[in-house]
């Protein structure tokens, strides 16, 4: 079993171990910490070049209020929600349906469809930048919420289908046979048997999809142009001025932008229940 505990009788190895762990943690957390500290500094202090020292004044309230009063972040924030929430819902609904059908029903072409879903994940999305943008322009959707929602739903559903299919395939066969012999239609089986049992999978998928869509920057700048529909990631880069940037405000906005995915994680956490199918089969 690794990692094996280092015995207290080997102080040199212990020291080395703790030293290395601390170094890695420092490297990992330093940028995050710096952004947080910077979000507390005053504009003058940042201009004076105090990036790493102890802040001279703590401007917590001023900076964070300024993000909402002096910039359009509140608007971008709303845009992000308008884009992300429907995308997540869309992905969850579609992947549950496709996953259910692909794992529980045999029909000609099922393997081909599944292969397409999985194979699509291997394509780097970036190579589709120009075709997707052109498509959205042709459809008259360029620079609308719909463009981003449709794109994200379409591209996340591939992976999500693989995820849900495997999860549903792992449920005991007898449950489906029992439901069928009791006269439940495939739709009733999905609603009354499958959904309650795949809750943990849906919660995990919701977090993954939410984080991905919320943090997406690439497609945000490819498919939108105007501030009216820009999500936070693209909005954040708007905060940088042409000649001078208020880094303290950019940092504060960054911290705010990072909150929803974390919040999402805690919201979904209660659905992670291990052993939901205990008691279904055998004793």
């Amino acid at each position, binding site marked *: 079993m690794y990692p094996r505990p280092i015995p207290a009788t080997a102080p040199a190895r212990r020291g080395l171990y703790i030293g290395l762990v601390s170094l890695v943690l420092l490297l990992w957390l330093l940028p995050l910490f710096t952004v947080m500290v910077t979000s507390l500094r005053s504009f003058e202090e940042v201009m004076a070049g105090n990036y790493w020292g102890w802040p001279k004044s703590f401007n917590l309230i001023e900076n964070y209020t300024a993000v909402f009063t002096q910039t359009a972040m509140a608007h971008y924030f709303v845009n992000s929600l308008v884009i992300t929430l429907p995308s997540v819902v869309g992905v969850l609904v579609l992947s549950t349906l496709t996953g259910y059908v692909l794992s529980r029903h045999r029909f000609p072409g099922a393997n081909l469809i599944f292969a397409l879903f999985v194979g699509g994940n291997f394509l780097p999305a970036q190579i589709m930048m120009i075709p997707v943008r052109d498509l959205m322009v042709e459809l008259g959707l360029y620079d609308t919420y719909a463009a981003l929602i449709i794109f994200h739903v379409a591209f996340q559903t591939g992976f999500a289908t693989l995820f849900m299919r495997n999860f549903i395939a792992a449920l*005991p066969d*007898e*449950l489906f*046979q*029992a*439901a*069928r*012999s*009791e*006269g*439940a*239609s495939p739709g*009733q089986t999905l609603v*009354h*048997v499958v959904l*309650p*049992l795949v809750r943990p999978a849906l919660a995990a998928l919701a977090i993954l999809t939410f984080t991905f869509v919320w943090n997406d920057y690439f497609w945000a700048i490819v498919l939108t142009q105007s501030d009216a529909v820009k999500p936070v990631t693209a909005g954040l880069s708007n905060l940088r001025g042409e000649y001078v940037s208020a880094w303290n405000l950019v940092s504060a906005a960054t911290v705010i932008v990072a909150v929803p995915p974390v919040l999402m994680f805690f919201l979904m956490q209660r659905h992670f229940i291990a052993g*939901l*199918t*205990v*008691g*279904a*089969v*055998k*004793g």
Partner: protein
Amino acid sequence: MASVELQNIEKHYAGYHALRDINLTIEDGEFAVMVGPSGCGKSTLLKTIAGLESISSGRLLIKNRDVTAEEPGDRGIAMVFQSYALYPHMTVAENMGFGLRMAKRPKAEIETAVTRAAAILRLEEQLDKRPRQLSGGQRQRVAIGRAITRSPDVFLFDEPLSNLDAALRTQMRVELSTLHARLGATMIYVTHDQVEAMTMASRIVVLNKGQIEQVGAPLVLYNNPVNRFVAGFLGAPRMNFVEGIVRTADGRGAVIECAGGMSVAFSDLASPVHAGDHVTVGIRPEKLRIDNIRSGTTFPAEVRLIEHLGRETIVYADAGSLSTSNSDSGTGAFTIQIGDIVPFRPGAPLVLGFDVHDAYLFSTDGRTVSAPKTVTGL
């Protein structure tokens, strides 16, 4: 009125002939048990009746109605699975009412049906619990309750007791027989356990390699098996089979010579055998004697292993070149069942003997050509 009728049922999986020309009529109110070794097609046959497996050709009638093409839910059947297959996120009451809820029956009706089933199965106290809070026996009762609430025409049981421990299995066996008597419904029960078959069935269907070998009341099958397979399958411990060659045959009688010079003379054969035929002599362990007076057919043997069960003793004994091909011990040793305590130790010499009137004779193709005349039909 025939409750379940199977007509020329065939089932092919990819390149595999799972069911071969199954013809069977199960009468209304019957408790039919299908037995056979694993892979004989008994579970497949049950799933075919349930509609969970499609059939390749043939017809299936339930209550004189052709249901071959109907969905399981429309056939008037209810199935109880070996693994219980309870919905883990529902309470016992919700589990039992599931079928009726899916059929959108009124709430009051569902409640009445659930209460009634719970009363029959003594589950009143458990109605608000979830399956994971129940013991194995209770879970199995919930699964049976789920079947009862739908008041089906036919109950289908797929090895429902094999996940329970031995004591509970005996208890559930009695409960199921009682339930059958009480509901008077047609039940079809699949098991590999021939004790369950013998004790519960009004009729046993013995299956082998996708074919029906014999159908009949338990004791009829036990005493008058039509072939070597049925004879070897029913009965615990299993029948001893000794290979032999017909030395002389004259119409109704024959003398069989076995290894080690033992010869057995049968008379009154059901169908003739011919000199030189390879045949099998069968003798049940309870009919094999440890013989000091050397009457009937006898042969020397040596104790290999002895099992004391209290009220009876099972002795496994080697008899040199004379060996049985159906041994419980898997070694060719003869199995002797004695209703007494015997003081032997491994290695002790014995003389085994049996009466020819207690012996069976199977022809080259496995058909029974001679069986004991003592008990018939029950």
